[in-house]
């Protein structure tokens, strides 16, 4: 929705000199970047360049070896495990390449789960989950178990789950990587729609088509570093 990285907007994510080593391997080698509210940022790069690692840093799923990660004003380095869990609950929603749904729960309960963990009653959580599934066009599949859902449907359920707690930031790690092209398109459209209504997005992908369609800004990563940053014209 935006064509400029309007500096008046609030900074949601700020990474400064982030390094992440796994043993001798440097997954991230000094990454600094900013994401402002309402932006849709795509991270691209070849396999193994550190994209997922970068995303995990932002989600507080992993800690940098050095450098600072601030999200929503919160210095993640200062939070303990519980603090990080509460942070994720409040501020981020995540979607993964392989959906990561719980096989034993039907679609509706998979979505409701995210709110139930915060102590919301089952009834309330299910009601909101149903609203979200309805918005994403799969309310009819609410009682279906993941095994019986198509890939695209599963990813929508995952998106609904990520949106349950109205996160300030939606993180997606190769959200279309396991989908056929048609389902991939649909999920992409869904993300674009979300961004249109103000949802901040950080999408990791190695699909240039997805990046250029969804994102307002592109960050290219190579060997754990930001190789290039560019602002994109909306194509849609």
């Amino acid at each position, binding site marked *: 929705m935006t064509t400029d990285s309007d500096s008046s907007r609030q900074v949601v994510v700020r990474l400064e000199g982030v390094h992440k080593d796994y043993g001798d391997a440097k997954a991230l080698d000094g990454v600094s970047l900013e994401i402002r509210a309402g932006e849709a940022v795509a991270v691209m790069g070849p396999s193994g360049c550190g994209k*997922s690692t970068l995303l995990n840093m932002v989600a507080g799923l*992993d800690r940098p070896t050095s450098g600072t990660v601030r999200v929503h004003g919160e210095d993640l380095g200062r939070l303990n495990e519980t603090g990080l869990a509460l942070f*994720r609950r409040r501020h981020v929603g995540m979607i993964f390449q*392989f959906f990561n749904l719980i096989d034993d729960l039907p679609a509706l309960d998979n979505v*409701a789960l995210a709110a139930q*963990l915060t102590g919301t009653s089952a009834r309330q959580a299910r009601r909101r989950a149903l609203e979200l599934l309805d918005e994403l066009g799969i309310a009819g599949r609410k009682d279906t178990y993941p095994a019986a859902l198509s890939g695209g449907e599963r990813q929508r359920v995952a998106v609904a789950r990520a949106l349950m707690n109205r996160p300030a930031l939606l993180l997606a790690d190769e959200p279309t990587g396991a989908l056929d092209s048609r389902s991939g398109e649909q999920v992409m459209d869904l993300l674009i729609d979300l961004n249109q209504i103000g949802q901040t997005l950080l999408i990791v992908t190695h699909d240039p088509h997805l990046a250029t369609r969804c994102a307002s800004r592109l960050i290219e990563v190579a060997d754990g570093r930001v190789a290039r940053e560019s602002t994109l014209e909306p194509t849609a």
Partner: protein
Amino acid sequence: MSAVWRASRAAVKRRRLQTFVIGLVVLCSTTTVLLALGLLAAASAPFDRAFDEQRGAHTVAAFDPAKASPEQLVRTARRPGVEAAAGPFGQTVLEMPDDWLWMSAGSLGVVGRADPNGPVDRIRLLEGRWATAPGEIVVNWPVDGTPGPGRLGTRLEPRGAPPLTVVGFATSMSKSAGAWVSPEQMARMHPTTAQMLYRFTNAATERELRTGLTTATAGLPAGSLGTAQSYLTLKRAFSAQADAYLPFMTLFGVLGLLVSVLIVGNVVSGAVVSGHRHIGVLKSLGFTPNQVVAVYLTMVSVPALIGCVLGVVSGNAVAGPLLRVAFSGVETGSASVGVSRWPSVVCLLGMPALVAVAALIPAARAHRLSAARAIAAGSAPRTGRGLRVQRRLGGSRLPRAVSLGMGQPLARPARSLLTMAAIVLGVTTVTLTTGLTSTMVAYGQAGKSDGAPRIDVQAGSSARGRTAPAGSDRRTERLLRSLPGADQVTVRALTKVSLGGHTQTVFANFYRGDTRALASEIVEGRWPAGAGEAAAGPAFLHQHGVSVGDRVTVRLNGKEAPVTIVGKTMEGNAQALESTWQTLFRLDPTAQAAEYTVRLAPGADARKYIAAVKAADPSLRAALLRSDNAATTTVVGFASVFTVLLTVVAALGVFNTVLLNVRERRRDLGMLKSIGMTPRQVTVMTVSSVMVPGVIGGLLGIPPGIVAHRLVVDHVGVVAFPESMKQVWHLPQLAALVVAGVTIAVLGALVPARSAARLTIAKVLHNE
């Protein structure tokens, strides 16, 4: 083969914890089984060995020399069925007026024998030499080891016979006599009976022994056979105490085996299920199905073997002290009670075999699995009922972490059942042990539940024999009653008497005064009241083949008295009989009491009373009676050790299951964390997953535990528990046992739960 070996090694490396659990479980149960087998072996093998070495007498018979001539007796040796015989030897009973050597005053059975060797009953000389000249005597040493040479030369002064000098100590597994003299010396002592020692071709049962003796003595004049003592009685006496421990050791052994099988089965099936992908990869690499099974068998066999070896080592280490307790006070003679080799061999071969069988069943699944299906394993459609329950749980008011956890066992019903079985066995063990402990504690408290202190008073004269003036024990009794604080006084005289039909002498306690506390120990019949009545413990009755209502003949100082067994006490020395003062009076009118038990009034000061006794009569030795009961300590001690072991093992079973579940659910866990599940919620969820199996396991484990407790308390040979001590189950205890089930489950789940809570999500998501 080397490919199988390499793949197994890799599999073991990837499952260090499970490998460790298998090893530990096998170790614990091997120890238990080894102890039970060791006890079983010790209960008969050493006796048989020593008995055979000495060519022990199957039957020791006493004949009336007035009715059967020596020639006639010698001829019995050639009768059919007699393998070997020795004798006739002259035999008599000496009366020892004072305590002598290590023994108390009373009867001593003496046999005249020229030679300790011979075709039967080769007596082993322990110290000194055999009695050859008149005035010499060799004394039987009934227990392990030797009395040492220091006591050689002791002079014995039997009543109404010339003095004798101890020239040797010897031991006879046949217990053919309390002491031996030369035949010339015996001739001077006017033998009352003639002893024959027989070995029969068939001697496995009492019945065969009776038949053998009847055949051998068929040609003898009627009434010439007096008494006959069977070696089976001696064998029973030998193993009585060990036998008492056997039922509960066996039960614990069986429980241990069951738990091991369960755990190994559980671990292997878990490894197969969670290793589906691994199996697929192996198969696609060209492993044949048999090689895949071999990989899984090897994977568990290595830790099982190590655990088994360590279990055999630790079992052997514990067996020594256990056997010492089980055979403490038993007249072992020259039988050396030790840990035999065969239980170790059985364990070393049997346990790994058992583990292999337990592993084979689930491993067979790996055999059948097709490579493609194995690699694609994952989102298999689940069964309907489990899903409905999970659905309902999700809508319940429970915190979501709890309801998620409670739903987890439904995802893997077979594994959950195995885990529950481990908990059931754990709770069964805890039930059995708490029951045993309650029974044993009640038993230890028996007769002193009022908490009144009891004082033991010994007459100073006892060591010097009956030198005290006649009637002085009445004075002492009056004195003890008159001192302040005294409530009840029981007077006791202890002596050795001979029992009709047995060459061994037994102890007899004769009581007068207040015998209420003693009477409370009766579990069958009643406490003896008048002359000619006696009571005894179960071990005595069993070993002497008598029961309540039977009549025996007691002999002392050449006098005989018929005695009827009117009661069975809860416990008691296998060699001791309890009777009344009136009975003693018939046998020895001049007998004096040597020991008094004073029960003080509740709250009375024991120390003041003891001081008062000393002040009133310095020759009396008074001391507070402390009741520490070896049987109680032993049973409770061992039961506790086994409970700890089996509880640990059961908890390890749960541990393994939860570990597997956590492993399999890593992706779910990563996702749950990514949507904000806190570490605490992860722990709660994981622990909740074992709560329901814990509660159900607790409920199911209690009844078999109660049955097992019944079995044990009904079969402790040396103690006959009254019904009141067997009924130890009350609601609060039962509730506590259910809690025990949950505790076992939670203990097992806690560690993997904590590690699940700490799991780094990025790593999980990266690896998947």
